[in-house]
């Protein structure tokens, strides 16, 4: 099918883009990579009156590694962030997750910030932002605000970005010392949306005992589901931690639903299996860090 008609805007500056978005309000939609939006338009599941194409705003393509983390601009494509060595060194979870986002060809166009704003609970990047406690910077005419991940995802395909606002960048905190991350998921076919997925982070102290063990679950609820299992693991070396008990605690937090791809019970089973694997992987990474 073909997209419905819309008025096309191609602002040449950020200020112009914010002016257009302020003018179009509820009727305006931002187009970046388009790898989620254009399918919705083609299937006529969305019909915005105005499309504001930010692809000419080259300044939004920046990917900056700062001391505290990685700031990814709104036009930074998945592929570019995935390939960046400085990004992988600062926060390895980004590359681990991006390799699982759709297919390489989609990743050439799709953007990291676009995935966050799309806020699909079956997508990898919202889980990454939630697990790391990152934030999204929203600009509107006359101001900007940083929204923490915990407040950014408000429902399935719903984010805190309001009418007139443009998500200009996202911030992913750096990996702390003696920490490791992992991303595990199960999909019917490589590149499909995951039936279930787990992003995990494990942190150790100087004696190599666990001080942090957290996961974010994909396809386990209306928004990324966070579970802190530090207490379940206990302050002990990874080798003697009860990862199976931690995985059961994650399962208890998840709220998966039935759909045509899998039953809720099967998703819950996967969440347990994947949580144990991801936590063990993250702990191994932390020991090697």
């Amino acid at each position, binding site marked *: 099918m073909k997209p419905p008609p*819309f*008025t096309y805007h191609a602002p040449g500056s950020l200020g112009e883009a914010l002016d257009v978005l302020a003018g179009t309000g509820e009727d305006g939609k931002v187009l970046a990579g388009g790898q989620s939006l254009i399918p919705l*338009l083609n*299937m006529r599941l969305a019909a915005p009156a105005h499309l504001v194409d930010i692809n000419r705003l080259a300044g939004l393509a920046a990917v900056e590694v700062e001391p505290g983390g990685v700031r990814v601009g709104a036009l930074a494509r998945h*592929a570019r962030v995935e390939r960046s060595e400085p990004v992988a060194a600062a926060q390895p979870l980004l590359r681990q997750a991006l390799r699982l986002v759709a297919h390489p060809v989609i990743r050439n166009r799709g953007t990291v910030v676009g995935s966050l704003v799309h806020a699909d609970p079956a997508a990898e990047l919202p889980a990454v932002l939630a697990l790391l406690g990152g934030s999204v910077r929203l600009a509107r005419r006359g101001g900007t605000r940083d929204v923490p991940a915990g407040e950014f995802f408000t429902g399935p395909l719903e984010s805190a970005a309001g009418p007139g606002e443009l998500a200009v960048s996202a911030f992913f905190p750096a990996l702390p010392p003696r920490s490791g991350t992992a991303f595990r998921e199960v999909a019917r076919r490589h*590149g499909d949306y995951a039936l279930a997925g787990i992003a995990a982070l494990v942190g150790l102290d100087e004696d190599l005992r666990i001080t942090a063990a957290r996961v974010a679950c994909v396809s386990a609820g209306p928004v990324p589901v966070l579970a802190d299992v530090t207490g379940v693991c206990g302050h002990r070396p990874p080798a003697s931690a009860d990862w199976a008990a931690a995985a059961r605690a994650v399962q208890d937090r998840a709220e998966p639903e039935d759909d045509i791809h899998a039953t809720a019970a099967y998703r819950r089973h996967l969440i347990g299996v994947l949580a144990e694997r991801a936590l063990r992987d993250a702990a191994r990474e932390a020991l090697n860090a």
Partner: protein
Amino acid sequence: MPEQAHEITLVVNGTLRRAEVPGRRLLSDCLRHDLGLTGTHVGCEHGVCGCCTVLLDGEPVRSCLTFAVTVDGREITTVEGLADGERMSPVQRAFAECHGLQCGFCTPGFLCTVTALLRENPAPTEEEVLEGISGNLCRCTGYQNIVKAVHRAAEIMAEES
């Protein structure tokens, strides 16, 4: 109300082409309908099948998930632009030699995807080939000969370089 037309310029297979398109014209439709290049095939129109894959400034992208106006001024390579004059490209020859196609509908997308894959990684492993073509669907071949063709194309390119 008539839709507003946008005048765009694309460099398609090395030739400067102009078109007047509404904002909602997909790049796939612009290539096929406005520019008459029907080699780019359209399967699912929502980014799943990979038939419409073309190269945008050398990088493979879904032309059905790209608006023509967005890529105004950029370079596009379609399946029609892969051959060197009358001589098929190494990837095209490998697909013919290995029987990497049957009905041919998905083939333009595979050829563009694989051309870019081998440009970036001239000697991919089996796993890298599978990952590289995982976004392209073929309903005839069962993929075995397509995978063989990718390896064969890598060989041909190495021999000819």
